[in-house]
């Protein structure tokens, strides 16, 4: 009987319109995931170039911007495709509203992608000197080769806000209290380091053992701290009634509970141990496996975190 099922002090909605379901779905997850790779590889490259001789990672000068460029284009493509009026994207540049993190982010990400493209062209043409030897464009690009090293510090600096602005968008999303956590900023940074190191693992075959060990180290640290932060947010984020209601629902085994724990085990715990073991004995196959797990797990974790607060009725 209903009186046993419902606390008598509670109210029951008996007539209402249907509420919107998930509004920001998998395209936004993919967008955030791809951006993590796009900026993450830049941080990882900066760290490795600082720690090691360039010869130890011979292909990184062109593979890093190439991976970043591809990932950033996936990110930009899905940003565009998720718009209900994609052609009007231009309005962000024609009528920018600077209080919006979406605007600031779009401008910064566009500039960042432009610079990465320049680095990719320089890195690519320098790495393959025989490719289009007599082509005018190739010659010009090869002529500005030192420009790569000059803009790189600026690109690393710019990668920081490009990584973090999504956390500001989430902070501006007043209707989704779960996202409005200060930890989100760091979570974006760890995600970038995790995705960046995982992506670079795939091109690290010919690198020195020491450089690869550092890659494994970054992956291990990033998965560890990201996991700890997720646990902190998952168990202790009872800072507001709405965030609490969202988490209580997931805790009780509701939808997305399995995806969350699957993502945590697969994408954070397993790669952490694989990466740590790899620091002792260099095993390229296992490291690659850890990288795949980390990338899949990161996608799942981001997907759950994006979707769960959207299931809460707001009014």
């Amino acid at each position, binding site marked *: 009987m*209903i*009186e046993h*099922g*419902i606390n*008598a002090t*509670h*109210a*029951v*909605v*008996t*007539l*209402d*319109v*249907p*509420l*919107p*379901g*998930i*509004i*920001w779905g998998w395209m936004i997850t993919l967008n955030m995931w791809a951006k993590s790779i796009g900026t993450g590889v830049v941080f990882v490259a900066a760290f490795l170039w600082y720690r090691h001789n360039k010869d130890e990672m011979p292909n990184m000068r062109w593979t890093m911007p190439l991976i970043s460029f591809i990932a950033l284009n996936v990110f930009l493509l899905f940003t565009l*495709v*998720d*718009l*209900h*009026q*994609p*052609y*009007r*994207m231009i*309005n*962000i540049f024609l*009528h*920018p*509203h600077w*209080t*919006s*993190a*979406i*605007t600031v982010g*779009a401008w910064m990400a566009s500039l960042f992608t432009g610079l990465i493209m320049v680095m990719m062209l320089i890195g690519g043409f320098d790495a393959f000197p025989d490719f289009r030897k007599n082509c005018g464009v190739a010659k010009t690009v090869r002529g500005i080769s030192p420009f790569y090293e000059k803009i790189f510090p600026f690109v690393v600096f710019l990668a920081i806000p490009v990584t973090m602005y999504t956390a500001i*968008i989430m902070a*501006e*999303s*007043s*209707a*989704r209290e779960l996202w409005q956590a200060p930890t989100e900023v760091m979570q974006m940074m760890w995600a970038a380091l995790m995705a960046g190191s995982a992506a670079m693992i795939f091109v690290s075959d010919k690198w020195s053992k020491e450089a690869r060990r550092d890659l494994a180290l970054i992956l291990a640290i990033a998965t560890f701290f990201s996991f700890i932060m997720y646990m902190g947010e998952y168990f202790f984020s009872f800072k*507001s*009634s*709405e965030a609490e*209601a969202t988490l209580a*629902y997931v805790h009780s085994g*509701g*939808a997305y509970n399995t995806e969350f724990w699957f993502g945590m085990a697969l994408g954070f715990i397993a790669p952490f141990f694989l990466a740590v073991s790899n620091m002792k004995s260099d095993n390229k196959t296992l490291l690659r496996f850890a990288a795949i797990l980390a990338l899949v797990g990161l996608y799942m974790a981001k997907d759950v975190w994006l*979707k769960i607060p*959207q*299931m*809460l*009725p*707001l*009014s």
Partner: protein
Amino acid sequence: MKLGFLVDLNLCMGCKGCEVACKVENEVPLGSWRLRVKYIDIGVFPEASRNFTPLRCNHCESAPCERICPVSALHYLENGIVNIDSARCIGCAGCMMACPYGAIYMDPESNTADKCTYCAHRIESGMMPACVVICPVEANIFGDVEDDTSNISLYIMEHQGSGVQVRKPEKHTDPKHYYVGGGTQTLDPLAQQRLEGYNLFNKITHLEHVGDPHHGVLDRFLAPFAGHAEYDNKSFMDSEKSDDDSYEQEGGH
């Protein structure tokens, strides 16, 4: 001037006249609402009561939707109305993530965000909002909250003791939409349960689409060339009928 709304929930009888008037006045498409009247049953028989709560945009003085809109499609008017320029909206749905009251919807015909505008077009020509005019018990009171002699200001002053409330004051949005006769059970959605099986509208607790249900990724790019000539509201009825058990559609808690 700061225009505001006040709804006296003691007077509202849940006739949904305002809901219909708003739909007609603003040509709000099927499956979307600028204003809805929610029925909430409180207590257990024989100590049970049915309560009616009209819900619309609050025209917040510190509006998160305006802040997050990347192109200023959402903007303040001088009279305090938070207005929307659909011609500029890019359909990013950022505002839907930002409005703590779920007051914004993606118009399935224009594929742009839309919401209650306090009938800005009627105000401009000196008329009252459509939902105010239609209300048979005058439960909707509309006017300038900065003018001490306006109806709404007098009403607020008169009911100060018995409690004039806004929704989710903790969000610091400073809503310009007040309720008299409301309480946590009627104004806080987390204090209410949405039980499948006890709703008059079963199995459609959540919309299956955001914006046009027949507006796939490719259509978004082809839309300006294809137009909406073939489009009619029947398609919404069809989409609501389709039985999909995924939690994304029927979720909520």
